[in-house]
């Protein structure tokens, strides 16, 4: 930051629901490689299905574990009055939903949503002029990877997320074990499992086990996607990043209502663009 402005507004918006799923999928696919991905008919469900297949093959991650991510996020979404989906679902609902790109089924995929979000940011030293309960950004990381998935040596991890997380943790002076609440990019259920691993919430390959053990549910040790995530809150693409920060802001100021995590002090938001060709990770700390 140049320091030129003391107060700025950041946000995003997207309007998608008026188009058909085919129309939306084609526009979203423009964030993947044109000559080697889009041209051959692969869109994001296909790209994330390749990652899911690789993860299942290498780590024995199961479709049931992926389904548990959807069930958890719907459970959280049911407590969020602004969520796209505010109803709970079962493992059976996910497993019996129609295939989109194997092993991903309809309920493994986030919906196309309309929505908008924004934040008012200030320099830290003047924050208290505006509120008694500011939330500080103490860590910020951004990294990139190839635009095409096919150019990478490993489909089971997102290098950009790992690098962005390392930068953010280092800047904030915290470790994954210090995080009280996190919002991650669950565009497909496998993406949340991979996020657990890339953010250091568990070892590589243990993401499926983490969801199975209930660690990331509202009453677990490290609640993830308390808003419902992209899966249940919805994914108006341009709004998603600051919408994640909005949820962390609520959690750290005690304003998250029925989904409030008691005493949350440090939060994390991890956002992804495309097949994680872009990743940002931010760490937030409650004011004393």
């Amino acid at each position, binding site marked *: 930051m140049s320091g030129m402005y003391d107060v*700025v*507004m950041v946000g995003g918006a997207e309007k998608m629901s*008026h188009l058909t799923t085919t129309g939306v999928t084609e526009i979203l696919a*423009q964030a993947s490689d044109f000559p080697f991905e889009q041209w051959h008919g692969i869109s994001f469900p296909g790209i994330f299905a390749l990652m899911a297949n690789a993860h299942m093959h290498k780590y024995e991650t199961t479709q049931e574990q992926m389904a548990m991510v959807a069930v958890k996020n719907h459970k959280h979404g049911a407590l969020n009055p602004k969520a796209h989906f505010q109803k709970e679902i079962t493992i059976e609902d996910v497993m019996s939903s129609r295939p989109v790109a194997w092993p991903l089924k309809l309920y493994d995929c986030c919906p196309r949503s309309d929505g908008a*979000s924004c934040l008012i940011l200030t320099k830290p030293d003047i924050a208290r002029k505006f509120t008694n309960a500011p939330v500080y*950004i103490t860590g910020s990381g951004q990294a990139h990877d190839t635009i095409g998935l096919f150019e990478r040596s490993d489909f089971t991890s997102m290098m950009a997320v790992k690098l962005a997380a390392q930068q953010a943790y280092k800047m904030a002076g915290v470790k994954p074990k210090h995080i009280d609440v996190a919002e991650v990019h669950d565009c497909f259920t496998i993406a949340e499992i991979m996020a657990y691993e890339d953010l250091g919430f568990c070892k590589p390959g243990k993401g499926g086990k983490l969801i199975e053990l209930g660690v990331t549910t509202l009453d677990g040790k490290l609640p993830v996607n308390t808003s419902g995530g992209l899966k249940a809150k919805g994914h108006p693409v341009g709004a998603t990043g600051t919408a994640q920060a909005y949820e962390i802001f609520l959690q750290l100021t005690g304003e998250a209502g029925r989904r409030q995590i008691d005493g949350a002090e440090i939060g994390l938001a991890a956002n992804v663009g495309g097949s994680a060709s872009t990743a940002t990770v931010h760490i937030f700390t409650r004011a004393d």
Partner: protein
Amino acid sequence: MSGKPVAAIVSAGLSKFGNLEGLYSREIFAEAAREAFEKCPKLDPKKDIKALYVGMMSESFEHQAHIAPMMLDWVGLLPIPAVRT
């Protein structure tokens, strides 16, 4: 334990998410902005906010490019600098 703050969030807003039939993204963004402004009575948006950074994945959804000034207008902050991110 925690590092030095690099920025502070003093307010935040979120629209309803879902199938918001009949609403353009500019109207939805205004809904989010309203919440952020109303939640922070000590903020005078017109006087205090010096720039807007607003993200949108694609102009193809609404056949609408050049969204930075449009969003700026719809949240009542013309004519400060605005950038699409």
